[in-house]
């Protein structure tokens, strides 16, 4: 046990830690009724149960106050170091997730064979036994036909433990087709880091110790994960130490992060890569880079330097980005002088065609100033040392099935570096490419809402002969299900969890039931154990001896970290402190160094028979290809994720709805934000009902005339426009994904989200 963990335990035991914050925490005995209770009439039972949130994939440690069997309050868990015991606003919204009146209370079977938008499935309640035996039979038949690859598994926001179990099931069953939502989020970010240092992961930033943040479209205070950590550290670096960190935000839209930053620099959309290279130009030409780091820890610098100096001087790039050359130089000088500094890329910059290259170009800035694996720079996330799972049992069917090409065309010529290409799956289903899908199971997924080109997903779901959906509520995807399996919510179930990269050190959270499951629902882990048992053979064997059910599985994987009852009592396990400067081990590249010219990429493309030229491995900038003609569709459509967009696929939560858009003082809605001058030209006034039309479709919404947006861009917040169940969500606002076209960053398969052209006119 690390020293820190030991100190934390002492604190919880109520001893003598003087940190006022710990004491202000109700879990440690401030304003709660005392636990010793009078007997008889009107007894109040009260407890605080440590668990964790799942309203986004930060999966923060929480404590839930339970009074008379009802969960009534959620606070952070002071033992968590990732967010230092803090949560975001959605933690309490978890109560409305648990007590959501639109939850489904028993398994459902479809009686109406017709499927489609707005078509009533004709649900009828069935028993779990009937539901799971039908699903099990279908799975068995498909596997016996020797076509396990024709099973498609879709995964939305799940606990880490459920993700592990679903992945194991895919492998044991024999399908390569496990598709997560990652391809809609930050795959291009990941590919950019991989090109430089071989880590195909989201970057972790040592926010707590940095002095300068240069954000390229990263929504640090609204949607970037781990969110609650960013919120906590923001307070720390902006007001709890003598040297206040400076924050500069590059974004065509004035986001919450931009308004809280020191400087907002609006940029022509899609040109962040050019800006990064111009900043590099200024840093290199003015001799401001970290010579020691560059000479000793990097390779390819000379080619990179030549590229940058030849093509990207700030005066030229000013014409591309719309940012004055002097501003570019100012940012470059500050970035190089105010170490440790972070160049932080987000979806806004990288969810574009060529997003991987943009991501790579931005990431390289960190190496230029030596911000790699140093305090306050880019760090490398440690994974929690869960007890490893035994190798799954496998038979010929599984081996052959898994070896088939995947539906999302990952790692093919189409998407050479991709790990998952979420949005491609809809088209593959429709075209039987490379083979037809016979059956699909969706776990908390909602891609016909959350992926661009929603209509294709509707058509694809309609086409799948047998679809099973597992979630606590009926989402847009659930409406296509033949069988609906109602899941427990995260306050009723067992799981283990950790956050996406950010903290550096590892931290595990245990979810345990805070209240008894309210309805006849099950955990998705339990469902998979059950189905595996029905399938028998190697599938069943793969799930033997790893705990037998959700609670057992969680214990199996985590009880090696600390005694089980201690884990349950504390809810959190924190790993050893982060170690910096691991230059001898961290670079997974051909040169063993940080690469300004990507050996990983060149090797991969060569292997796939592609021609390599002198630019291929360098982070060069290419102009974006837009969807739609600029004369017909003069504006660009952008989207963003407000903090109160609950990420579980529903939005049926009044607390989140009534404060949905803090910048606009607006709730229960979204709208199209449009620059005042642009609106004037179009004769559109604030509050007018307008059509937003792309080459693909159009949606009707209200106009919000807004000073905080680039004149060539309009923006719509994501998270609204639900059509399925739930009186607090259905029919509220619009879903921009209905009109966004389908395009990708080729290398990573990241969906391009912001290159669709549109026009806006009065309805």
């Amino acid at each position, binding site marked *: 046990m690390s020293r820190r963990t030991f100190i934390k335990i002492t604190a919880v035991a109520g001893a003598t830690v003087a940190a006022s914050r710990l004491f202000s925490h109700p879990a440690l005995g401030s304003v709660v009724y005392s636990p010793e209770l009078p007997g008889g009439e009107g007894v109040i039972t009260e407890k605080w149960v440590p668990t964790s949130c799942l309203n986004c994939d930060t999966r923060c440690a929480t404590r839930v106050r339970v009074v008379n069997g009802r969960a009534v309050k959620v606070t952070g868990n002071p033992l968590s170091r990732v967010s230092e015991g803090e949560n975001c606003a959605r933690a309490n919204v978890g109560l409305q997730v648990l007590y959501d009146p639109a939850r489904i209370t028993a398994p459902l079977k479809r009686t109406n064979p017709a499927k489609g938008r707005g078509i009533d499935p004709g649900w009828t309640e069935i028993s779990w036994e009937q539901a799971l035996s039908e699903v099990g039979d279908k799975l068995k038949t498909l596997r016996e036909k020797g076509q396990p690859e024709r099973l498609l598994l879709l995964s939305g926001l799940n606990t880490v433990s459920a993700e592990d179990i679903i992945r194991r099931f895919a492998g044991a069953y024999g399908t390569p087709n496990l598709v997560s939502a990652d391809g809609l989020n930050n795959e291009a970010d990941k590919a950019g880091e991989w090109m430089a240092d071989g880590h195909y992961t989201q970057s972790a930033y040592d926010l707590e110790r940095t002095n300068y943040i240069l954000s390229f479209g990263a929504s640090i205070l609204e949607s970037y994960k781990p969110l609650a950590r960013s919120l906590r550290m923001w307070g720390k670096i902006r007001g709890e130490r003598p040297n206040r960190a400076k924050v500069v935000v590059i974004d065509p839209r004035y986001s919450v992060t931009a308004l809280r930053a020191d400087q907002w620099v609006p940029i022509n959309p899609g040109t962040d890569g050019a800006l990064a290279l111009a900043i590099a130009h200024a840093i290199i030409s003015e001799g401001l880079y970290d010579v020691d780091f560059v000479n000793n820890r990097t390779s390819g610098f000379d080619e990179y330097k030549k590229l940058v100096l030849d093509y990207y001087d700030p005066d030229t790039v000013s014409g591309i980005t719309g940012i004055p050359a002097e501003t570019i130089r100012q940012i470059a000088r500050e970035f190089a002088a105010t170490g440790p500094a972070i160049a932080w890329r987000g979806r806004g910059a990288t969810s574009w065609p060529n997003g991987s290259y943009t991501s790579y170009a931005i990431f390289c800035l960190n190496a230029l100033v030596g911000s790699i694996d140093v305090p306050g720079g880019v760090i490398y996330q440690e994974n929690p040392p869960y007890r490893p799972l035994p190798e799954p049992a496998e038979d010929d069917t599984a081996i052959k099935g898994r070896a088939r090409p995947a539906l999302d065309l990952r790692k093919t010529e189409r998407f050479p570096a991709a790990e998952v290409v979420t949005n491609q799956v809809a088209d593959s289903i429709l075209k039987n490419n490379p083979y037809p899908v016979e059956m699909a199971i969706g776990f908390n997924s909602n891609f016909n809402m959350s992926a661009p080109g929603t209509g294709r997903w509707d058509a694809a779901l309609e086409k799948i002969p047998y679809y099973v959906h597992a979630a606590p509520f009926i989402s847009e995807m659930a409406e296509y299900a033949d069988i609906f399996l109602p899941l427990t919510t995260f306050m009723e179930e067992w799981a283990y969890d950790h956050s996406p990269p950010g903290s550096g050190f590892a931290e595990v959270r245990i979810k345990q039931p805070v209240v008894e499951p309210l309805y006849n629902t099950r955990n998705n882990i339990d469902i998979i154990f059950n189905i595996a048992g029905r399938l028998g053979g190697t599938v069943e064997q793969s799930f033997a001896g790893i705990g037998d059910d959700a609670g057992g599985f969680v214990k199996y994987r985590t009880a090696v970290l600390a005694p089980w009852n201690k884990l349950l009592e504390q809810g959190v396990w924190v790993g050893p402190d982060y170690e910096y400067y691991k230059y001898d081990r961290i670079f997974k590249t051909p040169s063993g160094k940080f690469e300004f010219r990507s050996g990983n990429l060149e090797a991969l493309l060569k292997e796939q028979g592609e021609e390599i030229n002198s630019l291929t491995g360098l982070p060069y900038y290419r102009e974006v290809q837009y969807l739609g003609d600029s004369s017909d569709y003069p504006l660009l459509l952008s989207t963003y994720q407000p903090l109160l967009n609950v990420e579980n696929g529903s939005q049926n939560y009044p607390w989140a709805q009534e404060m949905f858009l803090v910048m606009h003082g607006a709730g*229960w809605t979204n709208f199209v934000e449009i620059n005042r001058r642009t609106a004037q030209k179009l004769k559109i006034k604030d509050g007018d009902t307008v059509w937003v039309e792309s080459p693909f479709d159009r949606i009707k919404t209200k106009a919000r005339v807004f000073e905080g947006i680039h004149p060539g861009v309009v923006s719509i917040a994501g998270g609204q426009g639900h059509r399925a169940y739930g009186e607090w969500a259905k029919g509220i606002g619009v879903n921009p994904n209905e009109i966004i076209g389908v395009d990708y960053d080729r290398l990573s398969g990241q969906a391009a989200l912001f290159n669709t052209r549109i026009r806006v006119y009065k309805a």
Partner: protein
Amino acid sequence: MARWGMVIDLSKCTGCQSCSVACKAENNVPHGSPEEHEKRQTPFWHKVIAVSSGEYPTVRIDLIPMPCMHCDDAPCVTVCPAKATYRREDGIVIQDFRRCIGCKYCIVACPYGARSFNYKEPDEEEYQRPDPPSERADRGIWPFPHRIHGVVEKCTFCFHRIDEAVKEGKKVGEEVVPACAEACPAHAIYFGDLDDAGSQVSRLLASRQWLRLREEMGTSPKVFYLTR
């Protein structure tokens, strides 16, 4: 006697609204609906408001977390004909639901929009904090289990927490803070005794630039905002 006040550091605040949601959860403040929102009838004891100025690209929007200001010279107190709203000795401006006659004078008088009229019938949500039994009343009153329809409500500075802490001899501002302050992930909200020069709030006000909202109204608010 202490004089309770709140200091909100806008330089740390992230605009995340944890404060607003925590207040709803702590105090059983009813949620609204699209219709109530449209009619501006959703009750909020705490709200983060946006104040904007300037034009693209030099626009400036500030997000300001707003509880009741607990004005030392509170117009809401002056206008209340039923003496339902009054200032406690410790400076907390409080609302007695049973005395309130629902005339809404105070809503008109409050320069900060801090008050909400309860248009709703009393309802009970599963996640609301239940009513303690009467024999437990000595453990601090729990004022908000059932709301009275047709009266005015507002932020109480979480007086139930404060009173309990004082009774138990705990340090208000360190060991015990209002729910909004407790929930703030950026630690941007401070609470304490303005008359105690050693309290954290007093020290912050002595060392940093601060402002109060609508100073010109002469209300002497006890919520202070730290700027950079």
